[in-house]
């Protein structure tokens, strides 16, 4: 499907124009056939446009209903910068807490922090590439990045395969170890999340102390009650790097924490929804629509709350 995205813009414009003109009764089918025959890329462009059109037509009633039912809570953009400062302060405090014990070991400690609204790429000394999701913080200890702790937010790891060494990332007491994979870890919503798109990682949960293997296409959610393993589409792992938040049966508090990071507003999940799960894709955009999109898709309620918003079950009609 990715190949289709490479189609040149002017070809899409032509395809869209044909798509439109073929709807009329006196459509120029001969001209259309000639256009198709002129260049095989025309067919590809038209396929792609026709497919989008078919999906839109198929779901038009559902999409129309959901858009009409959208809550009118609009997240004001003007207050964003101040909120972000608050979020940064929390992240800094968390990073500090985890940094103190390691400082005593006299190993070099580096704290990587990403700004609001911007992810951050960097390479660790051991050949691991990391992308920090916006408003996230990670603490790396040791010259060869022997210890890595995700303090807040989410990070994507691309680890070069090297059987001579392993890499361990600690997140909320969970230890994720691997030797050459691609995966994400997330520390949001009072829980722990790991998703693997390539290779295998080994996860030791604080409660059991037992190592569990999580392979490509699998994810693990952990909280105080324990951990669960579920399937995930490998392409969806770290999809925020291309502008989307993708979830497959994710606990709502984790989704809310991600949205809080992207929107810069606190999002509180009402106890009535704490055990809810969400599957779906949210387009990040500038982050301001995420919460209303989520509420719309899940048919739940948003109410303003000090410093942010509260998500709760919709009132009975």
């Amino acid at each position, binding site marked *: *499907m*990715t190949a289709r*995205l490479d189609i040149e*813009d002017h070809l*899409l*414009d032509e395809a*869209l*124009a044909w798509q*439109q003109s*073929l709807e009329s*009764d*006196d*459509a120029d*089918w001969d001209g259309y*056939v000639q256009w*198709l*025959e002129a260049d*095989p890329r025309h*067919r590809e462009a*038209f*396929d*792609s*446009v*026709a*497919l*989008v*059109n*078919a*999906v*839109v*037509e198929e*779901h*038009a009633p*559902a*999409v*129309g209903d959901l*858009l009409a039912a*959208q809550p009118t809570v609009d997240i004001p953009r003007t207050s964003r910068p101040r909120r972000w400062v608050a979020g940064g302060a929390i992240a800094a405090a968390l990073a500090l807490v985890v940094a103190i014990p390691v400082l005593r070991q006299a190993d070099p400690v580096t704290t990587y922090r990403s700004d609001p609204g911007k992810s951050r790429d960097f390479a660790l000394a051991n050949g691991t590439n990391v992308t920090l999701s916006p408003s996230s913080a990670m603490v790396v200890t040791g010259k060869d990045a022997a210890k890595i702790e995700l303090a807040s937010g989410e990070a994507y790891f691309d680890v070069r395969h090297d059987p001579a060494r392993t890499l361990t990332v600690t997140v909320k007491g969970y230890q994720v170890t691997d030797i050459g994979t691609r995966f994400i870890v997330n520390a949001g919503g009072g829980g722990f999340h790991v998703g693997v798109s390539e290779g295998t990682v080994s996860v030791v949960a604080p409660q059991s102390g037992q190592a569990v293997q999580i*392979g490509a*296409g*699998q994810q693990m959610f952990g909280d105080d009650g324990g951990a669960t*393993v*579920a*399937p*995930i*589409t490998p*392409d969806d792992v770290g999809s925020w790097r*291309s502008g*989307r938040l993708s979830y497959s049966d994710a606990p709502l508090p984790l989704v809310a924490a991600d949205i809080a990071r992207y929107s810069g507003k606190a999002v509180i999940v009402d106890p009535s929804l704490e055990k809810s799960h969400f*599957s*779906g*894709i*949210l*387009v990040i*955009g500038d982050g301001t*629509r995420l919460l*209303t*999109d989520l509420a*719309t*898709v899940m048919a739940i309620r948003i109410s303003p709350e000090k410093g942010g918003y509260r998500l709760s079950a919709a009132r009975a009609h």
Partner: protein
Amino acid sequence: MSPDNESGLEALYGIYRAELLRFLVARTGDASEAEDLLQELWLRARQQNTGPIGNGRAYLYRMAQNLVVDRLREKQRRMVRERRWTDQETDFAAAGVEPADRRRTTEEQMLAREEVATLVSAVTNLPAGARKAFELHKLQGLSHAEVAAELGISKSGVEKHMAVAMKYLRRALLD
């Protein structure tokens, strides 16, 4: 009215068969798939109990076009399903096996839900003009001319908005 509607469309098919095949070859880029689609078109033309058709030739072209798009859509769905299916063939998934058909229905519902979620999210992220034009044209079924009148802009303005909207949705859906 023609003496017999069913044979009417079938007779038209006989007249336009050659050019419909040329169209399908150009449309699919695959001669054998085109033949296959033409066969399906003929079966449908025979079965269809239509009322009087204003422009039989355009009607047949549109039927053929719809057959192509249906197949495209089915292929895309199958790709998504198969990708997920292989993803689920893992030790952990095997532990909680569900009957295959039930899983498939769940998968389809999930796919539909995800598509709706992607569309809603993408539409709300559209620039205001593109969103309005998209909603009026695609969701409320107004023609381009009606959308132009409603928004007080030119028809080419509507087309520009629609192009922005469709390209954005395409990125969101096919990425």
